[in-house]
Each structure stands twice: as C-alpha cells, then as structure tokens.
C-alpha cells in the first residue's frame, strides 16, 4: 500500500453522492472557521490593550440589524443544507424492485450471509458488480450494525425486527465489513470483507458453491418440520388461512385494519400470531418465538414469499 489514504474508497453508487454532501459541508465549515478565526485573531491583535486603534462610537450597522442579519443567514444556510441532505436521503430510501435479495444474520460475533441460491457465507459477502443488492437483516442476540465504509453503508441489525439496506457496487475489489454497534466482548473481531465481482465472476463463484436447496426450498422443508403445514393446508384439521399468494397482498384483519403482507408481517405473524389476526379466523396459532431459530425463520419467510410466484401465473 503506497502512502496514507486521506479519502475512503468509493465503491458504490451512493458513495459519490454522500461524498458530495460531505465535501460541501467541508467547504462551508472551512469558510466559517476562517471567518471566525480571522475576525477573532484580527480583532485580538488590532484591539490589544494599549494599541492605538480607534475605539469610539460603534458604527450604526453593528446594532440589532447585524444580529438579525447573521441569525437569518445561519438559519437559511442550515435550511439549505437540510434540504440538500434530506433530498439525497429520500432519493435513496426505496431499493429498485429487481434488486438481488441477500439475507444477513448478525450474531455474537459473526456475520452469516445467505444468497437466494442457498449459498451461505460467514464473515464474507460476495456481490455482483453493477447490480442493486438488497440486504434483509436480523440479529439473533444483541444489536449489531452492518457497516461497509467503501459503500457509505451502515444499518443496525436488531433482534426482533427486520432491517433493510441496499447498494449498487461500482468498483470490483475487496472492502472492509465491520460491526459498528458495540455488541459485547469480541465486538472488534466481528469484521469481514465484501468482495465485489464482475457479473460473470459472480456467476462462476455462485456455481462453485456447494450444491444444495435454495433458500425457499429449505424453507419448504422447515415449514413441514416446524409443523406449520399441519394447519396451513386446505382441508386441514384447524381452520387456518391459506398462504399461497399471500405475500404482497392486502390482508383484512379481525379488528378491521388492513395491512400489507410484507416480510415483516409474515415474520411477526409467526412470532406474535395474536397481534394481527386475519378476519374470519380464530386466534389459535401458538407463537414460534424461541421455537424457530432466526435462520429457520428466514427460510420459512423465503418459502412463503416464493409462493407468490407460484400462485400468480
């Protein structure tokens, strides 16, 4: 490595946008610091005790007006900076719909990554260059935070809820992956690398992974093993809602609300079944919190999501 880097690598589509805001703030800060330091030191020298600089009546401009002037100037500057940063933030909220979906589990003290193909990695994440990637993340124990400095990406990974982040890698290479939220004794060992591969290399890498079921197929097995299939089947012993085509649909609930059956809804319905009971059904489903592991949950949810594609021709 030649020399000391003063600027982090820019390896995602988001990185130049963040850096533009950062650079503008640097310029604004430099101007203000020079202004304050220049005035302060200039006054301190010119008006040092015993100097001959005139000190008579203050010019009229240095009265209430200037005070109101710099208050409004700072307020407008603050509003402008907010507007710019806020617009950039909102533009990056929604991932593109065709993004490659990769699941991440944080646990003390490792990252577990599952690709849609079923390939599994520890403390590593291989992603294709130029393709949007959406990370769907959860934690098994405490809060972790998925941090890739080169992508300007950070998202806490929280037990009991799904968090999401997305990026499009723009530079092939290997980058640091850190846990950024203090997560216990070996927090600083919870790091790995993100490998950005050109699409053909990514395909090659993906094929080289041990053959196995994909995530949804693994989920179908877990669906049976956990006993879900016992009730959620047409003509089963218990009156339970069918799940085919559920994902992405509006669901009417017993208390009159309507909710979107997204991933968080599917997951919550497994862990906290009495929270959102579907209209026309009795709240008889037991909670699977503590029964299904985080990895099993992810597989079952992936299976339920795959049923949409199967159901809609």
């Amino acid at each position, binding site marked *: 490595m030649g020399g000391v*880097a*003063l600027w*982090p690598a820019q390896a995602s589509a988001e990185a130049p*946008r*963040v850096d533009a805001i*950062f650079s503008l*703030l640097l310029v604004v*800060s430099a101007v*203000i*610091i020079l202004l*304050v330091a220049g005035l302060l030191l200039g*006054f*301190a020298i010119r*008006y040092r*005790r*015993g100097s001959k600089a*005139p*000190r*008579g009546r*203050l010019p009229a401009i*240095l*009265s209430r007006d*200037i*005070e109101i002037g*710099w*208050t409004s100037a*700072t*307020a407008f500057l*603050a509003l402008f*900076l*907010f507007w*710019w*940063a*806020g617009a*950039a*933030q*909102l533009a990056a*909220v929604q991932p593109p719909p065709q993004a490659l979906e990769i699941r991440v589990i944080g646990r*003390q003290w490792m990252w577990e990554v599952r690709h849609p193909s079923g390939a599994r990695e520890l403390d590593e994440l291989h992603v294709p260059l130029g393709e949007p990637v959406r990370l769907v993340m959860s934690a098994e*124990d*405490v*809060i972790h935070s998925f*941090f890739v*400095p080169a992508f*300007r990406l950070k998202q*806490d990974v*929280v037990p*009991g*809820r799904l968090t999401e982040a997305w990026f499009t890698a723009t530079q092939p290479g290997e980058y*640091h992956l850190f846990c950024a*939220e*203090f*997560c*216990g*004794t070996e*927090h*600083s*060992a919870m790091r790995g690398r993100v490998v950005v591969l050109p699409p053909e290399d990514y395909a090659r890498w993906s094929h080289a992974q041990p053959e196995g079921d994909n995530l949804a197929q693994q989920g179908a097995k877990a669906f049976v093993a956990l006993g879900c299939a016992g009730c959620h089947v047409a003509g089963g012993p218990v009156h339970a809602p069918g799940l085919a085509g559920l994902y992405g649909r509006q669901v009417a609930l017993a208390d009159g609300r309507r909710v979107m059956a997204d991933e968080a809804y599917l997951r919550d319905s497994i862990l906290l079944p009495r*929270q959102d009971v579907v209209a026309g059904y009795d709240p008889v489903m037991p909670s699977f*919190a503590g029964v299904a592991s985080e990895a099993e949950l992810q597989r079952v949810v992936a299976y339920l999501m795959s049923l949409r594609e199967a159901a809609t021709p």
Partner: protein
Amino acid sequence: MSEVAFDPTAPHGVHPPSYLTAGHTLRSWLTTTDHKRIAILYMLALTLFFFIGGIAAALIRLELFTPAGDLLTAEGYNRAFTLHGVIMVWFFLVPSIPVTLGNFLVPLMIGAEDMAFPRLNLLSWYIFMAAGLLAAFTILAGGVETGWTFYTPLATAFANGNVLAAAGAVFVAGFSSIATGVNLIATIHTQRAPGMTWFRLPLFVWGMYTVSIVIVLATPVLAMALLLIMAERGLGLPIFDPAHGGDPLLFQHLFWFYSHPAVYIMILPSFGVISELVTCFARRRIFGYEFMVYAMAWISIVGFLVWGHHMFVSGMSSYASLVFSFLSFVVAVPSAIKVFNWTFTFYRGEIGFAAPMLYAIGFIGLFTVGGLTGLFLASVPVDVHVTDTYFVVAHFHYIMVGGAVSAFYGGLHFWWPKITGRLYPEAWARFAAVLMFFGFAFTFTPMFLMGFLGMPRRYYSYPAEFQIWHVLASAGALLLAFAYLLPMAYLAWSLRWGRRAGDNPWQATGLEWSTTSPPPPHNFATMPRVAEGPYLYHPAETGPQHGQPEPEQKQGDHP
C-alpha cells in the same frame, strides 16, 4: 455595577473574615451549609473522578497504539471505555461547572447570602458521594462492559459485570443533579438582590438557569430508563426483550431523550463562563446580551427535540430521521449566534491575554469546530457513514472536552483569586492554556479523519491501515494529559505560596468582585443594590446597544 458599603463597625483584622476561616474542623466542613464550602467539597470529589476517568482514557490510548490487542484483554478494554464514559459523563462533566463554579458564584453574582435551600445543597453532595461510592464499588468489583449507553439487549441479557451497580450509581447521581437544579432555579428566582432584574443578570447566571431547567426536566427520564433496565436485568421483567414483544429501540429513545440534552447540560454552563471571561479581558460589554440569553433559551428548548439524530441507522423510520435531521440543523443556529457575538465582543475592545482569556479563545475555536462537525452528523446520508465511527468520538469530545473542560479550566483560573484569595502563577497558566488547546487538537483531529475513513469506535483491535492516526492521537493525549495535570500542580502550589489577590484583581464588574476575597461566610457585609446591567467595562455610548433602553424608573435605585 453597585456599591457595597462595608460595615464601618466591622473589626479591621489583618485578614477580613472569610468562609475558609469560619471553621477548621473536618466536622465544620462535612456539616456546612455554606454554598462556597459545598462548592469546595464538590471540587475535591470531581477532581478524584476526573483522575479515575482519565486513567481509563490513558489505558484506552495506550492499547490503541498498536493494531493488535496486546496491552489489555478485549474484556478489559471494553471495561476501560465503559468506565471512562460513565465516570466522565455523570461524575465529572454533567455536574462539573454547576456544582462547583455555579454553587460558589450564583449567590455571589445575584447578591444573595446563600442558595435558596442550603441544606438541600449539602444533601445533594451527600447523594452524589453515595452514587460515587456505588460507582467505586462497581469499579472495584470488576466494572461493566456495556458502554456508557447501556443499550438493550446487551446490557439486560448478554453483558457480564455489575450492570445493576453501575446503572444504580448513575440513577442515584441523577437525584443529586435534580436537587442542584431545583436549588439553582429557586435561588435565581427568589434570592436576587434589589434591582437585579432578569435582564441585568450576568450571562453565567443565565447559563446556570437554563441548564438547571434542562437538568430538572431531562434527568427523570434517564432515571426511568435505568430503572427499566434494572428491572429487566435484575427481576427478569421483559420490557425491551423482543422475544416477548418488547422493542430495543424504545430504550434508545428513552436514553437519548436524556442523553442528548445532557450534551447541552455540559455546554450551557460553559457558554456562561466564556461570556464572563471574554467581556472582562476585552473590557467590553457583551455584544448582543439579549440575543445571548435567547440563544441559550432556544438551545435548552429545541435541545429536547433532537435526540433521534443518534438513531439514524437504528432501524427508525426514514421519515422520522428527516424530522430529527431538520431539528438538528435548527439547533445549530443559536450556537452560531453565540460564536458570532463573542467574536464581535472583541471588536474595539482593550484586549488582554491573561490565562483565562487564552482558555476562552481556545474554547471558541474548539467549540466552533465541534459545532460545525455537528452539521455533518445532522445530515442523514453523511451520518449513516460516520456514526459509530471515530468521527463521532472526535465530534463530541470537541464539544464536551475541548469546549466544556476548557471553559471549566478557564473559569477556575478566573475565579481562583475569589475562591482562594490567592493569585496563580500567570506564566505557567498561559503555557498550560496554550498547551491544552494544541494538545487537544493534536489528540482529536486525527480521529475525524480515521472516522471518515471508516474506523469504528469501541474497537480494541483494528486494521493496520488506521494505525498512523491512532499513534498521532495517542501522542497528542500525552500532551493533553500534561496540560490537565500542570494546572493542578501550580494551583495547589498557589494555595500556600501564591500572591494575595485582593478583592478584584481583574478589575471585573459583577457583584462577586465587590466583596472580599475569599468572601465572608454570608458573602456581603450589607445587602447589595443593583442599578445597572452587567459588563459595564466602558461608557454605554461606545458600546453595542441592542436591548431596550433602561426604563426611566430604575428598579432598586439608590435611595
């Protein structure tokens, strides 16, 4: 500002009676209700805690000298930074200026005999010491590794160590804070001398008033959040546990609802101190007195509404982030106003460069950098990248250490002659002030850069590419440690060998300078009467006139 007529019948000894000579036994100190003695008691306790927190900081900087974890174990390192955070925040920075300088000076500055509730004042010291004992027990029993933030579920279900004792210590210390806050509010409302109207109060008193309101409103929320943590960890009540439908983010909201205002608890008193120092050594009225007051009031109100900017990556809704981002930009405005006003107070002054003024100039510089980097953290896309990295560590140290600790040292030097009756050695003090500024910048500026490069905080081993920045920071910390220790040495020396100060060595305005140094037990021989505003360092017509003209019928005019 006022005339204090000394009682002509008072005995003329060699030294006038002072609060220091009012009693020499240990008992006379431990049962005192004199606000000045209680301030001294607090000062001794805070010095001890500053040493403990400082030793932890030294261990951290030593460990980070190399990328590998070699000096401490991972657990030892985590315990060191948790100890550093807990002690420095709750046992040094939050109480620092209010309980020492505030306790000592507020009654003197408003012309009162004592605080409104002298016994509550002493009680708050005992509560603080009880909390300190609990904290000391926590340390001796091995410490905790949760970070000062006590995030769940780490603190409730996963961390080893004495989390209950540590949270209990902070919980108890909160009552001491609240008692001091209530006392200051009551004192400023009810104990002002005749003629001391609200807009004649020195800005230091305004700083104490606004900070007390923040303390009284925010601390109960922290107490509640800590109780919930203790209930979950100690009694097994599932409050934040996601397995039982709880939400770890709820704790973060409660915690930051206190802990962001806590930053203003640390910095508002400094604003007051700096205004006193700048006016005295520039021989100028403060530029824009009323705006300075409104800026402090604005900060103390809007400061309550920005806590969510600590949680932009926590999983909170993007739209909530947007609102908190907006409010965080809004709260930057009054801080900027204060910096501009201090700067223009220099304009057309007669500026002297005694040590307190050097501390004040250093404060303005470091606070400006700290405040501007706050804008980076208020911008959501930038915050996502730099939060939980060393950028944040640098930012809040610039405000809380470069800002608040510089102001504390500056204020301590300025009022040292009043507190002890002795002058400190000026040349040494100037050297220490300059060294503190450069030592600080040397320590914390590299952290901005390595944070931007991606170095996460709370890492005990780290990738080798960050080593150069850590080495620079550790080397700067050595200078900084020296700059903190040096004043302790010469100030202690001056207690015995320093020249006698006289009543008003700085020719400062302000009621505290109109009484003897050190002041007598009840502060003033006769009740002061106030007829004019603060900082009358020069004729009114050559100074900034911002406020309304003084009313014709002056309150409390001399009879």
